[in-house]
């Protein structure tokens, strides 16, 4: 051991550690931008991640099909192989169909919101390992015209914002995260509030609508499926885009305001493709009411 402490090996190890500490310090100072080495690593890992995600998705789908068809198998043993083969074909067909539907739906976004400048559909390369708020990586970056904090959407609704950006990849923080706050309003009652994630709700795949008026009309008439839309007040998100549906309304812990659990319109925990809104009407412009405050 003494030999090691006096050896050049220890010096080499200390140099590498100092280098890593330097990289760490640089990463901290880089804000949301990834360092070039990470971009290269992401580019190299991306095909492997896509492949593994596709495999795990297919396995999951095949298992579901198998469970659903189990009774049929018992009835006729001879048809089992044939059914399995048909299921395999169906699985491929469904996969292609789903992809086509997703692509069509993204065209729909552009038709509905003509002020949106959107990227071509970005593939979700993988979810961040063990992230409780389901952050994920996409295969689009600065080269596609994306900027930090651009909103990420699907046809169903808002998903999150870009919080880390490389040339050909980006990381998306979802609306389940407490790091993200979105000004929203309810389409039917016009109640305004702030949508921000919480640990407890994120575990159930939901998010929290805070700072509602204590006597909110949402509480009086607890109809399901009330739609929550972005209010576009801070210029970070486009106005009137669907975020989710009101699930349950209750009084906040402080007793001064009400809050509600919101089920996101898009299934944040199981995404395959998303689009990034790089520009929209009112981007970066705070609303008049906000400016006055």
């Amino acid at each position, binding site marked *: 051991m003494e030999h090691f402490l006096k050896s050049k*090996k220890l010096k080499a190890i200390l140099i590498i550690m100092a280098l890593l500490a330097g990289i760490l310090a640089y990463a901290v100072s880089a804000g949301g931008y990834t360092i070039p080495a990470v971009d290269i690593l992401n580019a190299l890992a991306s095909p492997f991640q896509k492949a593994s995600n596709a495999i795990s998705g297919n396995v999951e789908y095949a298992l579901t099909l198998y469970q659903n068809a189990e009774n049929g198998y018992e009835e006729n043993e001879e048809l089992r192989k044939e059914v399995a083969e048909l299921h395999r074909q169906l699985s491929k067909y469904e996969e292609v169909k789903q992809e086509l539907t997703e692509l069509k739906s993204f065209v729909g976004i552009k038709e509905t919101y003509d002020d949106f400048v959107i990227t071509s559909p970005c593939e979700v390369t993988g979810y961040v390992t063990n992230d409780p708020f*389901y952050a994920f990586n996409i295969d689009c970056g600065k080269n596609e015209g994306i900027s930090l904090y651009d909103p990420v959407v699907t046809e169903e609704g808002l998903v999150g914002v870009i919080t880390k950006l490389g040339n050909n990849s980006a990381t998306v923080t979802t609306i389940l995260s407490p790091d993200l706050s979105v000004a929203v309003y309810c389409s039917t009652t016009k109640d305004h509030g702030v949508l921000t994630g919480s640990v407890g709700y994120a575990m159930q795949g939901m998010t929290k609508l805070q700072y509602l008026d204590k006597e909110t009309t949402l509480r009086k008439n607890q109809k399901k499926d009330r739609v929550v839309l972005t209010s576009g007040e801070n210029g970070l998100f486009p106005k009137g885009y669907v975020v989710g549906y009101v699930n349950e309304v209750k009084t906040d812990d402080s007793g001064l305001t009400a809050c509600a659990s919101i089920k996101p319109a898009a299934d944040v925990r199981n995404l395959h493709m998303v689009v990034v809104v790089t520009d929209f009407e009112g981007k970066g412009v705070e609303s008049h009411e906000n400016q006055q405050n």
Partner: protein
Amino acid sequence: MRISRTDTSGKYIFKQFIQWVLFGLLMVICFVLETAGSFVKPLLLIPLALCISAHTGEIQAMAVGTTCGLLLDVACNKLIGYNAIGLVVVCVIVSLLHGYYLRNRFMNMLLLTAVYTAIQGYLDFFLYYAIWGLEDANLIYTNVYLPSEIMTLVSMIPIYLLVRWIAEICGSRRNYELEKTIIMNS
């Protein structure tokens, strides 16, 4: 008594090359498995780095720690270098411990992996969630970190066996150095 070396130098280099190719392949597989799906997963790169380090010299352990640490940082979306620094230190310590004090036994590796996984998990949880005073932050520890740590420990069993098998087949550097010393002294 004359002890002859089992491998010629060229053969040894070839075996070493194969060994590191296989170790590299294992790293890629572990990285890919770690990033598949959105469910809670074991951090496979930790036991892999520790098991490889137990069979190699300090410099190789440092390289393995750096590589696996950086891959872990990318997979977990942490600051680049955050996991790498910790893993370099632990991998070098594991290599030194196995070189000077410990025998390469399963229980030793299990203990080392358990200690490091627990420290890494808690530190991660503390720095990324607890310190910011998040409401119900303990839920993250019980629902994400703890299951992941347990899964990491369980996954250490096949990884340990696989790494040991590769090292035995290809002849680890430590065995070669030991063999060389015996030959020189005999």
